[in-house]
């Protein structure tokens, strides 16, 4: 992974000193709350329902065991001993005290971490595929590009006060998109042209929130050397032309939609012409410098352990299930990528305690070269595990309740912190998640249902990505009561589709039963082995509507 040089370290250290001074000025009354607001936001600090919330950046979801141990230590020292993994591959502390935040940032800086630009109207953490660099179906490792974007966007002087937040995601897999790039302000798909050169297919204007919309292609092939000048040009147009009169219409998606992608492209090209061949162009040397941090770890020369695993599967059915659901094929023979599930029923999805984090850190050291990743599905990935050690790892994970063999199923749901924590939320989301997990507790049944993305957001801001869940649940406020709207047919992948709302919303206590009816309808009308998402497209919403609203009347 990328390792800071003294220059990177100085930037982060100075930022800590700066925020310490800003916090002092605020606490002394020299800085008005509305002035402190953008400063604290750009250092990841929200003021929430019960306490401030600090969002720590995990660049493109990648971290070391040392960093994870430090997070555990911080959560114990300054918080209540647990953290939340977010849908943008970051980590949140729910209960830090404002006056401790400068110390927390200093502790983070010691392990090359920070909270810079994890909130505020600026360029946020760049996200990517949680299996980047270890799957065979990949043009090349997207992480060097993410790191180049991270450095460019960090403290970018021109784009710290944009009309609204700005999110960039990169995908390099050929046949799938685990980074949901079509639902980002800018989505970059690594591609190869006929000459075998690598470049980016660029999408712009995608997003969720109040106006969910897939991004549109603005450039079919951007040469890699032009990455930063082109991003600069897009941001420049957005900074000048994006709406600032209404925060709900301020994202780039509204601008692109209003102008049309062709007119928007012309404006970008006009800006790009000034810098395209200038000094900001990426050099081979710089690309290679960054790439050198993402070389393969010291893999052993191994064969695939097919026979051993078959034997272990036969002897231990629960291991068999886990292997099927939670273990991903690896580009290297004899290795596998493991998803550590943070979705055990009874725990808030994506939450982990300090002790659990320390165990995961140890497991990363023992089984996966001391590195781990956060997925946007709010799980943790150990990406480089020897196949002959999978059984031992599974046993260790089972002991701490992190081996729920449900990855990709209905109960591996995405869920924001919701009304239990978040000041923006209209409704709670964690109890809804739990009610559904309790209702669907039969593993064999879940496996029969196959892959289903269930995404839950507590409000329109859509942190739980409800629009692009195959099933989406959105918390809404009706005259002070919490209600939930259900949508079907969302797809975060290559097809990039926004789900359609089923109909009038439901009370919290009805939701698990509504889901059961939706699933029963699917089971009844399903063709041989059909995926839920495919069935929804084939059938449309009608049969689901009929049954759901018939039973609830």
């Amino acid at each position, binding site marked *: 992974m990328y390792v800071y040089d003294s220059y990177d370290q100085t930037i982060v250290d100075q930022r800590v000193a*700066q925020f310490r001074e800003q916090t002092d000025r605020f606490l002394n009354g020299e800085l008005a709350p509305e002035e402190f607001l953008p400063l604290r936001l750009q250092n990841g600090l929200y003021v929430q329902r019960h306490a401030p919330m600090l969002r720590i950046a995990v660049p493109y979801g990648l971290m070391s065991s040392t960093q994870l141990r430090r997070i555990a230590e911080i959560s114990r020292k300054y918080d209540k001993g647990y953290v939340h993994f977010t849908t943008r591959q970051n980590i949140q502390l729910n209960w830090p005290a404002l006056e401790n935040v400068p110390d927390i940032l200093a502790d983070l800086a010691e392990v090359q971490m920070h909270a810079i630009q994890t909130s505020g109207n600026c360029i946020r953490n760049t996200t990517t595929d949680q299996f980047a660099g270890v799957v065979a179906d990949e043009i090349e490792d997207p992480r060097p590009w993410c790191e180049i974007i991270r450095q460019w966007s960090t403290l970018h002087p021109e784009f710290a006060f944009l009309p609204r937040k700005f999110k960039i995601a990169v995908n390099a897999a050929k046949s799938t998109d685990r980074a949901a790039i079509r639902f980002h302000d800018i989505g970059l798909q690594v591609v190869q042209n006929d000459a075998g050169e690598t470049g980016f297919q660029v999408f712009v204007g995608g997003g969720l929130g109040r106006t969910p919309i897939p991004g549109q292609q603005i450039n079919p092939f951007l040469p890699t050397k032009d990455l930063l000048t082109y991003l600069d040009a897009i941001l420049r147009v957005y900074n000048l032309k994006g709406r600032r009169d209404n925060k709900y219409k301020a994202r780039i998606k509204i601008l692109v939609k209003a102008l049309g992608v062709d007119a928007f492209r012309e404006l970008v090209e006009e800006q790009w012409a000034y810098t395209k061949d200038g000094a900001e162009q990426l050099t081979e040397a710089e690309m290679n410098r960054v790439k050198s941090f993402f070389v393969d770890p010291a893999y052993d020369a191994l064969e695939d352990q097919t026979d051993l695993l078959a034997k272990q599967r036969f002897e231990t059915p629960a291991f068999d299930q886990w292997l099927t659901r939670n273990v991903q094929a690896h580009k290297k023979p004899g290795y596998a990528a493991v998803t550590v599930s943070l979705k055990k029923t009874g725990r808030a999805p994506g939450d982990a305690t300090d002790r659990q984090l320390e165990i995961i850190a140890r497991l990363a050291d023992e089984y996966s070269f001391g590195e781990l990743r956060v997925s946007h599905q709010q799980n943790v990935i150990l990406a480089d595990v020897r196949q002959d050690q999978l059984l031992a790892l599974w046993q260790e994970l089972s002991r701490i309740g992190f081996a729920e063999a449900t990855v990709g199923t209905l109960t591996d749901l995405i869920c924001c912190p919701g009304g239990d924590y978040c000041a923006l939320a209209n409704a709670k989301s964690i109890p809804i998640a739990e009610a559904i997990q309790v209702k669907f507790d039969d593993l064999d049944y879940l496996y029969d249902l196959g892959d289903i993305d269930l995404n839950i957001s507590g409000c329109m801001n859509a942190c739980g990505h409800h629009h692009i869940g195959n099933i989406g649940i959105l918390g809404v406020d009706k005259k002070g009561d919490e209600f939930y709207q259900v949508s079907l047919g969302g797809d975060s992948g290559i097809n990039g589709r926004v789900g359609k709302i089923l109909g009038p919303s439901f009370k919290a206590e009805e939701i698990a039963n509504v889901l059961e009816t939706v699933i029963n309808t699917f089971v009844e009308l399903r063709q041989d082995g059909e995926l839920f998402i495919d069935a929804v497209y084939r059938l449309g919403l009608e049969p689901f509507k009929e049954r759901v609203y018939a039973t609830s009347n």
Partner: protein
Amino acid sequence: MQHLIKDGQRVKNDPWLIYEAESTQGLPGNALMPLSIWSESGTELEQSSLPFGVVIRENEEIDTLLPYLNTIKVIAFEFAKFTDGRAFTQARQLRLQHGFKGEIRACGDFMPDQMFYMERCGFDAFAVRKESELEFFDFAFNTVYKYTYC
């Protein structure tokens, strides 16, 4: 504009003043006048031997100013809200795309915490809101903020 910093130094007797002119009649030198005067009478102003500047406000674009960049001595961006970052891009465009060599000044509602970003975008003068912000400026420029990626 009493609390001015230019090229990293405090300036005591700055001659430039915002002048809400409605025409070019009787303009004093060192007037920062509205963009509309330049748009309408730029060629006339070019003939004057007096030094003139412009003040650019919220929602105004710099395009009509471009023919007169060699004449204009000071371009002042007056911030209506410190959260509005458009002038950051406009300053960069003036420097990088249009080669403007004169002074780019920030005035109005901006925070000293933003000055470092602004300086890197091409601002070289800052009319801060109050005395205490001048002191902060010394701290900011001499202790933190020295390193950056771009």
